[in-house]
């Protein structure tokens, strides 16, 4: 999946260290576009595949709302991501054609630093629409809510680990979306300017 996002409301791009020190999101709004390309393995005899055998993508408007002072160890944000997903047809879904109507997704997060290196979040995600039709037989639209939580920890200056869990809540009926999952993310990041600064500081 390819993704591109751009800030449209909020602080200007962080071009140097002083900009980074001054950074506060306050109220910022981005636009994001994602596109999944139908490449990779696909088994047309199975209804479940990693590849989806169709183009799909989304357009979204991420919003960050800073609550209180922007001090490491005390940062708090309220974040939203409304997005609409659009799907092409899968013309070989177990030999049938599957069409999917647009789906609306809304993500919300209340995040808070617990310490300088540790933060947590309460996560909510809702799905609506996205009715699938398989060879003319219509399914039902989604109207589901998922809740969960995330913990993030900075392991070292270049590495961060996040753990998150989420589960649907209104999933009692057989046709309701029922999905839960656990996710661990490790992110390695670097920037030549920061690396150089760390090197100089180490040599001090």
């Amino acid at each position, binding site marked *: *999946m390819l993704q591109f996002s751009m800030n449209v409301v909020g602080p200007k791009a962080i071009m140097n260290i002083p900009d980074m020190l001054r950074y506060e999101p306050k109220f910022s709004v981005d636009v994001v576009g994602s596109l999944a390309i139908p490449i990779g393995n696909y088994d047309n005899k199975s209804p479940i595949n990693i590849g989806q055998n169709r183009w799909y993508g989304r357009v979204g408007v991420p919003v960050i709302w800073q609550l209180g002072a922007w001090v*490491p160890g005390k940062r708090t944000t309220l974040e939203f991501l409304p997005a609409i997903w659009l799907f092409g047809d899968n013309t070989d879904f177990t030999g049938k054609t599957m069409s999917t109507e647009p*789906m609306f997704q809304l993500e919300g997060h209340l995040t808070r630093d617990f310490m300088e290196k540790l933060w947590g979040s309460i996560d909510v995600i809702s799905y609506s629409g996205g009715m699938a039709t398989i060879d003319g037989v219509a399914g039902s639209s989604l109207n589901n809510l998922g809740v969960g939580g995330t913990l993030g920890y900075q392991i070292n200056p270049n590495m961060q680990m996040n753990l998150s869990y989420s589960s649907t809540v209104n999933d009692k009926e057989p046709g309701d979306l029922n999905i839960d999952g656990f996710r661990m993310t490790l992110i390695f990041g670097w920037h030549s300017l920061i690396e150089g600064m760390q090197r100089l500081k180490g040599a001090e």
Partner: protein
Amino acid sequence: MNNYIKFISMRAGNNSIALFIVMLCASISTMAQGDGPRFYWKTLMGTNAFPVIASSMGGNSNPLDPSHVVLPGSDFKSSMAMAGYAKMLPIGKRSGMVSIILPMGNLSGSATINQLN
């Protein structure tokens, strides 16, 4: 230069500077769990990030299909790994980010759809 570094360290602390780097792509996945919190926080333009994501999911919908087509009576389990790359780039005076994510892994389960098991 040393004074400048001392000034920066005093103002922000070692950890908070580094934190800005690695916040990028905190959870790049756009599948069943959404993008996740703090994904759109900004960092220094030119920052690179490699996220590696491991996930375990289950339910009555293919967790990798963002349309979440419900297949009643089905029970899917998935163990997934995803790797990606992202870079922060300025677009005029605004922040931008390009990223790519590649899923790989194992999906298993049972389902009955139109008499097809």
